[in-house]
């Protein structure tokens, strides 16, 4: 091992994380002085968005730099990381912009919430760029702890408190599983650094039995964090219980980070055990597709329905990883980014229809939306068809590339199963479209006049369509990122 030297060059690759940490800390301090009058909350909000924009810009500036492992193997900066980080930061920005009005009306738009959101984002970025079991775990916990607190922040709501409790207890259990698995893999390979773990496994220097045991725990932990069945039980309750912007925060960006985590850990670090984890992921994918698609039908609460829809989508994401080659990983990356976009759209619509004292979270609240606002009904239509995987939307191409990779890997039966369950899934997405277009409004429908919600929702909807018609640029980027980083 080289002696520890400090120079700017060694930490330069981690610049986005450093900038975010500094700005988040500064925001915490600044918020103390800005506390009080309502217009000052806008200042905090503006600073938060500015901080995220700066981080996105810094990350974008790094794109094209050669891949580099630094900080003694703890951290990697590569195209995959940059793509995921930019997508994550943009998703968080969209989340905050959409949720602003909702949070403000409920008195949740506080410095605490915003700085937790920033620290959570930092956690996600660390996960994405981790190259070491400890960094992976550190990022994961930073993200998870911020999220637990964000859910719990709505103190007056019994539902939110219950959700936070469930989330925390189960999350801690999953972290325990993950750590236990990592310790076993450490025992088997003698290292925590991913490259050395990878070398040890592929050179046969590891203890095979112990390694597989560790792998089981690691995969379980990951499945919990992704929300893949049968480790999905927390998802519906947390999605339902948390304030909608928090749900959106938990539902969109962390999926990108979790994908980064999976790719680093399984696809890179444990690539020598691909055949082992493939089998485990097959079980997870099949369970998720079944549970997600079938149970979603019975939901009358939109947030719960979207929670089950998430589970189904995570099953699809797992399919891409199961393929176990660059095509599959590229497909999974494309899927995750598309999914984040669609999640912004679907939860954005809930936020759009909510107002002070009213949560538009029941499916029936979308009844007759087309009569009130053609444009937003159309946006929601695009997002719903995209979630169902109907062209010409990005959801179709996401499914297509995943299925293509899985079929190439020889899992024909998985493809057929996924396809059949997609039809089941289409049923409940169609239900929303049906209510919006084919029913008369049940009660009063109001559209949030706040431009932030409207703009982000429109952008998400239009991008869903645009990437569905011209998917090539995004797809190329994903493929390049995987090729450069795996």
């Amino acid at each position: 091992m080289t002696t520890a030297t400090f120079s700017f060059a060694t930490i330069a690759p981690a610049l986005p994380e450093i900038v975010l940490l500094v700005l988040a800390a500064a925001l915490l301090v600044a918020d103390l002085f800005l506390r009080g009058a309502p217009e000052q909350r806008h200042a905090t909000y503006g600073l938060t968005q500015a901080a995220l924009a700066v981080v996105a810009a810094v990350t974008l500036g790094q794109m094209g730099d050669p891949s580099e492992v630094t900080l003694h193997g703890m951290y990697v900066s590569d195209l995959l990381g940059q793509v995921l980080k930019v997508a994550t930061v943009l998703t968080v920005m969209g989340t905050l912009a959409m949720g602003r009005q909702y949070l403000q009306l409920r008195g949740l738009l506080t410095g605490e919430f915003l700085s937790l959101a920033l620290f959570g984002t930092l956690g996600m970025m660390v996960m994405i760029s981790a190259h070491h079991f400890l960094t992976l775990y550190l990022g994961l916990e930073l993200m998870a702890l911020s999220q637990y607190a964000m859910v719990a922040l709505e103190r007056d709501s019994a539902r939110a408190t219950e959700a936070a409790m469930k989330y925390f207890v189960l999350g801690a259990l999953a972290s325990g599983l993950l750590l236990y698995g990592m310790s076993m893999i450490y025992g088997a390979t003698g290292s925590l650094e991913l490259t050395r773990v990878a070398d040890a496994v592929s050179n046969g220097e590891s203890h095979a039995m112990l390694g597989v045991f560790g792998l089981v725990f690691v995969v379980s932990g990951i499945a919990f964090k992704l929300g893949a069945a049968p480790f999905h039980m927390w998802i519906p309750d947390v999605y339902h219980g948390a304030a909608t912007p928090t749900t959106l925060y938990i539902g969109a960006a962390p999926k990108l980070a979790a994908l980064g985590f999976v790719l680093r850990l399984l696809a890179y670090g444990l690539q020598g055990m691909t055949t082992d984890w493939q089998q485990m992921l097959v079980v997870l994918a099949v369970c998720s597709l079944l549970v997600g698609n079938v149970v979603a039908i019975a939901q009358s609460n939109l947030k719960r329905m979207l929670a089950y829809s998430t589970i189904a989508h995570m099953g699809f994401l797992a399919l891409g990883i199961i393929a176990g080659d660059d095509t599959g990983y590229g497909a999974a990356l494309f899927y995750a980014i598309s999914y984040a976009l669609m999640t912004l759209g679907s939860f954005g619509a809930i936020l759009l229809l909510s107002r002070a004292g009213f949560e538009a979270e029941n499916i029936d609240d979308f009844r007759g939306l087309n009569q009130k606002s053609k444009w937003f009904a159309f946006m929601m239509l695009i997002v719903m068809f995209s979630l169902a995987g109907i062209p010409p939307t990005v959801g179709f191409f996401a499914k297509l590339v995943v299925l293509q990779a899985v079929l190439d890997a020889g899992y024909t039966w998985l493809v057929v199963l996924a396809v059949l369950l997609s039809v089941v899934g289409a049923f409940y997405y169609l239900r929303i479209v049906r209510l919006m277009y084919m029913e008369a409004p049940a009660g009063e429908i109001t559209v949030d006049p706040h431009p932030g919600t409207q703009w982000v929702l429109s952008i998400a909807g239009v991008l869903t369509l645009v990437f569905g018609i011209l998917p090539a640029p995004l797809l190329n980027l994903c493929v390049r990122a995987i090729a450069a980083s795996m």
Partner: protein
Amino acid sequence: MFQGYLLSLTIWVPIAFGIAVLAIGNDRAPAPTRWTALVGAVLGFLVCLPLWSGFQPTAEMQFTEMGSWIPRFNVNYHLGVDGISMPLILLNSLMTVLVVIAHWEVVTEKVGQYLAAFLIMSGLINGTFAALDAILFYVFFEAMLIPMFLIIGVWGGPNRVYAAVKFFLYTLLGSLLMLAAFIYLYWQTNGSFEILDFHEVALGFTPQVLIFLAMFMSFAVKVPMWPVHTWLPDAHVEAPTGGSVILAAITLKIGGYGFLRFNLPIAPDASHYLAGFMITLSLIAVVYIGLVALVQADMKKLIAYSSIAHMGFVTLGFFIFTADGMLGGIVQMISHGFISAALFLCVGVLYDRVHSRQIADYGGVANTMPVFAAFFVLFAMANTGLPGTSGFVGEFLVILGTMKVSFWMTFLAATTLITGAAYTLWMIKRVVYGEVGNARVAKLHDVGAREMTFLVILAAAVLALGVYPKPLSDVVNPTIHKLLAHVQQSKVQ
């Protein structure tokens, strides 16, 4: 000047106008919306005409366009038409014009969205027929579901929502399996989604059967063949008139087109192996569904079942592997496009006045609407296959082709001449002839200029195709001969 982009124009002109109509749509002053839609539909039809006049009577793909779309997976924006797809594009563009004319005084709610849905769908259907890349085909094929779903579900009859969802899910299930088949073929051709490459690739027998069945699921639902036809009566009955017209005249044809473009050439051995199965299903459609049509009390339902029976003739013609049968099937597709559209429009004319589709609510319409009655009877006769109308040509050719294969098959197929006449004429007798049935019929007024327009156009088409089908068969024949030669060669190595 646009020579190289004709097919793109047939796709994108209606879609562009559809978006424009959506943008300017306004229910309080619908006139500009309607005129824009009409201009778009007519323009969409006009850009198709050079396809007909410039078509070379060979089996080659013509008017081809090629552009890279998703280079990573070798997916291309590849368009082209041959003798099978070109007439269908023409038919579709003509129907769009008629649908826009037909809606004029009838649809008053959400006019912009209604017309936009039809225009966009028209472009998508043209894309389906013109696509030479499997993914491009699939995108058009599936995207079409969205406007159709909305048309049935928003402007349809009382049970529209059920019908729309049923239509959507049935079609989706079939097409997703086809998508899996496309991906499989992509790996078999070493990374190509070109439909013409799919035609050439060697395949083992079992894969062929599986591919055939996957695509069968997709196209059989569209045709629709017995027993996956049950969505059609619901969808037809609940759809607004324009929706029924497009469903019957065009979307059903996509199923038939799919068999010719995909099943037969990609899986020739499986096609021969499963021909008996396909013929059986077709004959069941012809005989059994013909009988079902006989007992319908609802005019639209009757025409819907009649459509299924007629489409049974189409698939029968395709799977007996004779030139006559295949030509007959294609002529039948075009002819049925005109006739079913005409019949649905006729029912629409009555429905707009009386607001009932029940046969029992009418009687003696000829007394109050003599001109309309003349047209209605003409189309009904065409539906029964009267010589001199387009309905005769297709059925006769299919029966001729079937005769070369088997007498009993022909016997069963020919029962349609009796049942078809029975259900159609019985309906006509009860609706058009006899004493004036009730007070509402007594108050009917005859068709106006707008309604005359589409009735005359369709009557002219039905008669022209019936008296002189040669221009159509000249276009179709080279493609058929090439296809038959291709299907005779085994792909199993």
